[in-house]
């Protein structure tokens, strides 16, 4: 599947396209099929996202998982500072990245 990611213009936070708006959580990401360019152009022009692009991902039982480790680190946060990730209370969250 193809999903869209970018950064919030004001805060720089990593965001994912959930079909309606931009979510902080990769689990919310939806397959955009062949519509990536259209959505990216519209959302970037409206400044609802910055530096956005499409990435490959798979749908797994626990949710959407980007194909590349770089995008998984973007989705979670730095593996060396779990306290700064989106799941600071989950000590096993890093295993999802690797």
């Amino acid at each position, binding site marked *: 599947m193809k999903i869209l990611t970018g*950064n919030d*213009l*004001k*805060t*720089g*936070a*990593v965001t994912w396209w959930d079909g309606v708006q931009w979510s902080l959580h990769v689990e919310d990401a939806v397959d955009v099929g062949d519509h990536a360019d259209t959505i990216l152009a519209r959302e*970037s022009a409206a*400044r609802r996202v*910055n*530096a956005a692009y499409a990435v490959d991902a798979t749908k797994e039982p626990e949710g959407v998982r980007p*194909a*590349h*480790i*770089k995008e998984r*680190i*973007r989705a979670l*946060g*730095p*593996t*060396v*500072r779990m306290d*700064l990730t989106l799941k600071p209370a989950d000590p096993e969250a890093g295993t999802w990245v690797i």
Partner: protein
Amino acid sequence: MYKYDTYDQAMVDARVEEFRDQVKRRLEGHITEDQFKPLRLMNGLYLQLHAYMLRVAVPYGTLSSAQMRMLGYIADKYDRGYGHFTTRQNIQYNWIKLEDAPDILADLASVEMHAIQTSGNCIRNTTSDQYAGAAADEVIDPRPYAELIRQWSTFHPEFSFLPRKFKMAVIASDTDRAAMRLHDIGIQLVKNDAGEVGAAFYVGGGMGRTPMVAPCINPFVPIDQMITYSEACLRVYNRYGRRDNKYKARIKILVHELGKDEYTRQVEAEFAHLLTQGIEPPLAELHRIQAQFADPAFEAGASDDLDRSDPDFALWVDTNCVVHKQPGYIAVTISLKPVGGIPGDASADQIRLMADLARDHSFDELRVTHAQNIVLPHVKKADLYGLWQQLDAAGLGTANLDRIGDIIACPGLDYCSLANARSIPVAQKISERLSDRSEAIGELKLKISGCINACGHHHAGHIGILGVDRKGVENYQLLLGGCEGADTSLGQITGPGFDEDGIVDAVEKATEVYLSTRQDGERFLDTYRRIGMAPFKEALYG
């Protein structure tokens, strides 16, 4: 330390307000990201893996305690309570909001700091010896010359859009502590037989995907022509540097392709022309700057005695402190590499503590080192034990300078959008695995980069590690034999790469080869140079 004059302050203040307006226009949609990106980069603001990253310049690595305290304040107020000291003596914040960036720059300007020259194809922040002004072996304090270069290069209209970024370093000792020959221009200040100060120019060094050791193109440029000669070096590069290919655009490629002799000939011709133009700053300006780097008020007759009865303290003194030019004083390196820690990271509380200790015990001065540590350059030996106790209580007392735990590591794939592999976890695992053998191993400089850009200086590590992406999986190449000092050399790849755990095992095996074959007094690097690669390859792959 250098204090801004009214021109310096006015320039920095104007820059803050200019950027404030640029950010406002971006947020309001009056300019696009394509238009805004070069503007934010000229103010040190990158868009990285998780957020905006702000790189703050620390000219030649020198900070006052007030400046250091401000860095801690920014970490708390605008970031997530920490900062990352870099291999170019700067500091980076990883979680910056665009809307806060102008206020951060304004706060920095209030203590004579900025983020200029930390990005873009300009002359970047000039680096220097972290012991400048304290080292017993320097011929002269290099910082006034680095400051002169800062003033000349800042906003230099001819060199704001070079073919690629451009890095300069200035040292004044035969012992190179700034990786000088791995810079675009490395300057070593020297004295001739008549006792006159001059500048030896090394041009065309660098790391990255094509590492080169800079050759000396002129062993003695009179000091009152240093800026003119620098300008000649830049002009030839600006004229002929490869703008058509980003990967061949650094000056090292030009010097290599032209050949040292032809490049030098062109520089000398340009230099002769520039001498007729009178572009050298007046000596009075250099003297004005030098006056601000006068020695602090050292206590005459301060005692050299140290109570070494605490073995942990004695080890730290032997490992992390170096001789000072002034009797009774010592230069202290505060390691930002606790066992298993993140190299170069410091919490806001630690930053404030170091600022306070500098105020109380080091004449208000600190230095950032390219090895991602902090130096208190002028500590009275009588104060040393109490200072160490405070550092140790704050997790800053690790005795590992230039040991295997003193690892240089770039932010890697945990933070950097350019990286191919994570650097920090590898550094942490090696530190945890081998730090208990630190003293047995002795001096061993280990450097890790998460991509070919080599921000972690892996080419110059006695042991270097390069992270690469192999079909979406992190892989690590091992290099041996690099060195950044006076005997600069580039590391050689041992062979096929390793996975994350495998590279830690490989480093351990390399140290075991060293320990089993070293001769009296040999460092890891010496043994490698004597026995060559073969025994290491046999241990790694045999």
